[in-house]
């Protein structure tokens, strides 16, 4: 039982490039979340999903897209990367039945130059 896994761990992008951050959970959780964490700013919600095929915007969705074709996977897509997207990205999942805590992956550190 690996929990929440994220790839890659680190990535450097040039301005205007695109990439997909991968997130997979093996706990059969219905709910999944993407956050970004900037120094001194706390965790901000980008997008979330309440189940396969259902996604919605969080607090800071601009410049990002998501999809949820399976229960296990919740990839985050960056189109036309900008320096403002330099951050650490965390994926989390939650069961939603009898327990409401979110479990986090190890993060992806992204630098856009």
């Amino acid at each position, binding site marked *: 039982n690996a929990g929440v896994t994220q790839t890659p761990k680190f990535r450097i992008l040039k301005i205007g490039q695109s990439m997909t951050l991968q997130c997979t959970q093996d706990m059969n959780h219905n*709910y999944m*979340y993407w956050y970004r964490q900037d120094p*001194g700013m*706390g*965790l901000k919600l980008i997008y979330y999903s*309440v189940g396969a095929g259902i996604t919605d915007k969080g607090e800071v969705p601009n410049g990002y897209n998501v999809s949820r074709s399976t229960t296990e996977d919740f990839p985050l897509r960056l189109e036309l990367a900008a320096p403002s997207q330099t951050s650490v990205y965390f994926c989390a999942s939650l069961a939603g039945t009898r327990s409401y*805590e979110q*479990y986090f992956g190890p993060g992806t550190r992204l630098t856009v130059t």
Partner: protein
Amino acid sequence: EDQVTQSPEALRLQEGESSSLNCSYTVSGLRGLFWYRQDPGKGPEFLFTLYSAGEEKEKERLKATLTKKESFLHITAPKPEDSATYLCAVQAGRNSGGSNYKLTFGKGTLLTVNP
């Protein structure tokens, strides 16, 4: 809009010197208040969930308490391995649009325990 404020931003303790971290919150109907620990370069690690005022949870040297406006994380006789950033988050209740179980996080308290 849900808000979470943590204080202090940073706290430096000597080993064995007990103290408390504060988390003040405003939320439209609280479902739960969550404490996480985050080590450098890692994802947040779940510590506690508190659901109602007066509730307390303990784990080793940590004890979390909850009132209607704030939560405290008490650290008793800390050790250097307790050094980390401690994050507080709130989750709105079902009647406040909380069916998606979203969390609103504070900015965290960086705790350093010196030997």
